[in-house]
């Protein structure tokens, strides 16, 4: 499959970024990254440590502003929008180091996620309590269903900070799902997770794709990338080095030199 085939046609792009740059005290973490994410597919963002992957995700999600370059979600220019406005367009994200809302329960972590809750307005709390209650009941039902799906149902009343590392990863993904995303950015969802859970998380991501959710995930586990990702973007030194299917990229000498070589060597030595 060619790069064009793995991405699909150009009118199906849900996320487009062009010439993104970001420097920290003169050090260019992102240096002209340009790529597109095809709608309804699972795209991997790979590259060596320090390639600028997490910085790119931070820029895309609005957690950070770029020094230059543009970002579009669909046809909307969202360059340097604040993260809450980008999230309202349907872009949800998880974090490299899990950031659960620690003092809230597992269920509450999910209940925060839905957009436009009537119960978040003072006027509705006092003047339209029945509407608030009805929507809250619907959200609780839906959240419990998602928790059951992700194997966290029995932990629903635990404070989120009490969860294990793997459970926190699941919580972050399920919280993102609760927000009904159109695009989900996953920052190393398999990092520090046992092989059985990697299998499960991979299954969940495929399920999301089947439900029409587009996924962009930073991932170092090439077996996972090979199995579930339709499209791969390789970043190195803050630039887009190549894009396409992983099987095709394995034949790309630049990609092998910059990233795949070290991964293959590392797995050979281990």
């Amino acid at each position, binding site marked *: 499959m060619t790069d064009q085939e793995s991405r699909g046609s150009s009118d199906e792009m849900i996320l487009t970024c062009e010439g993104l740059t970001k420097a920290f005290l003169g050090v260019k973490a992102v240096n002209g990254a340009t790529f597109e994410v095809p709608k309804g597919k699972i795209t991997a963002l790979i590259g060596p440590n320090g390639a600028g992957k997490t910085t790119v995700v931070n820029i895309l*999600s*609005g*957690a950070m502003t770029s020094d230059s370059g543009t970002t579009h979600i669909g046809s909307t220019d969202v360059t340097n929008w*604040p*993260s*809450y406005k980008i*999230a*309202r367009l349907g872009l*949800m*994200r998880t*974090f490299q180091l899990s*950031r659960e*809302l*620690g*003092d*809230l*329960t597992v*269920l*509450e972590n999910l*209940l*925060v*996620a839905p*957009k436009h*809750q*009537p*119960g*978040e*307005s*003072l006027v509705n*709390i*006092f003047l339209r309590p029945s509407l*608030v209650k009805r929507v*809250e*009941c619907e959200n*609780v*039902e*839906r959240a*419990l*269903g*998602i928790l*059951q*799906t*992700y*194997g966290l*149902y029995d932990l*629903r*009343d635990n*404070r989120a900070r009490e969860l294990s590392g793997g459970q926190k990863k699941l919580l972050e993904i399920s*919280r993102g799902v609760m*927000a009904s995303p159109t695009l989900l950015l996953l920052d190393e969802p398999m990092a520090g997770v046992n092989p059985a859970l*990697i*299998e*499960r998380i*991979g*299954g*969940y991501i*495929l399920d999301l794709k089947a*439900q029409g959710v587009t996924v962009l995930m930073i991932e170092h586990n090439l077996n*996972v990338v090979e*199995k579930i990702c339709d499209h791969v973007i390789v970043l190195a030194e803050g630039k887009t080095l190549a894009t396409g299917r992983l099987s095709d990229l394995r034949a790309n000498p630049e990609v092998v030199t910059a990233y795949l070589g070290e991964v293959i060597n590392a797995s050979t030595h281990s």
Partner: protein
Amino acid sequence: MSAFWYYVFTLLFFLFDYFILAMGLNIQYGETGILNFAYIGFVAIGAYVTGAVSMPDSAGTGQHYILGLNIPFPINLIIGGLTASALALIVALISLRRLRTDYLAMVLISLSLVLYDICNNFVPLFNGADGLYNVPEPMAGVLKLTTNSFVPFFAGVAGVVALIMWFLMSRITRSPLGRTFRAIRDDAGVASALGKGVFRYQLTSMLIGSFYAGVGGGLIIQFGGSFNPSAWLPGETFVIFAVIIVGGVGNNIGMIAGSLLVETLLVHLPAFLPSIPSHPGLIEYVDAMVIGILLMVMLWFRPQGMIPERIRRSPISASTPLSSVTAVAARAGAEPLSTVEEGGAS
């Protein structure tokens, strides 16, 4: 009324009043994570405005103050609360948009000092260092209350106001709005990534908390009949912080426990003890030390406070069978658990 009951009702008044003040600071700091070190400034503005709008025109009173509108209770109290909220709006627009945590705290403590200096030195505003006095006692004329009977009456009024404000605050903290406040307190970045406009919610929290501060201040000036800058030194904010930290941050019931222990028993009860002739003022100094030590002990050994923030459990019991939730999951379009466990990367 004997002196004993006078003391008891005075203590009760301060218990109810600081319960209101603690709830206001709790929604800002305990629920939303805003370190409002200027809180006492909002209390003072509420007190001054409540007093000034309930007093007659200043001409001929021997005092200098603005307003002077003869507005009766409880409208004057509501105006005091709303004025404190209006001040919070200005402060929030200036400081909350760009500043977080420690920087915000520094700006707010500076604001508290500026407010103090303005009120202390700009006499035409609220009579400068002398402050307002001869503030009318609410409903004293209508109910023909004497100085003695006003104290238990107004302690009761404060109790009713506290009860109403506790009810309203409970509705807020138990609602999705309260949950979003706590999400912002836990991690504002995550809340923002979930589509929550953090500034808007922090502003809402500031307005609610400041309204409580203003109402609490308004009750104080009407109870005592006077209010001047010595009553609201910027350090007073930390006594209210002690109330909520000792009582239990994030718990409205903890606020009344903190008010009872810190404000009523440690701050106001010793004020009624006979002073030691050879060491005047010693009791107040020991008092301040005890509060400081109590604060450190609580932060070290029981940071969650006397009554910790409760876990908001799901509306279904732990014994709810999975099958019934499966039906819920099916309606939500989710996959049953058994399928998930068998599923994997394929």
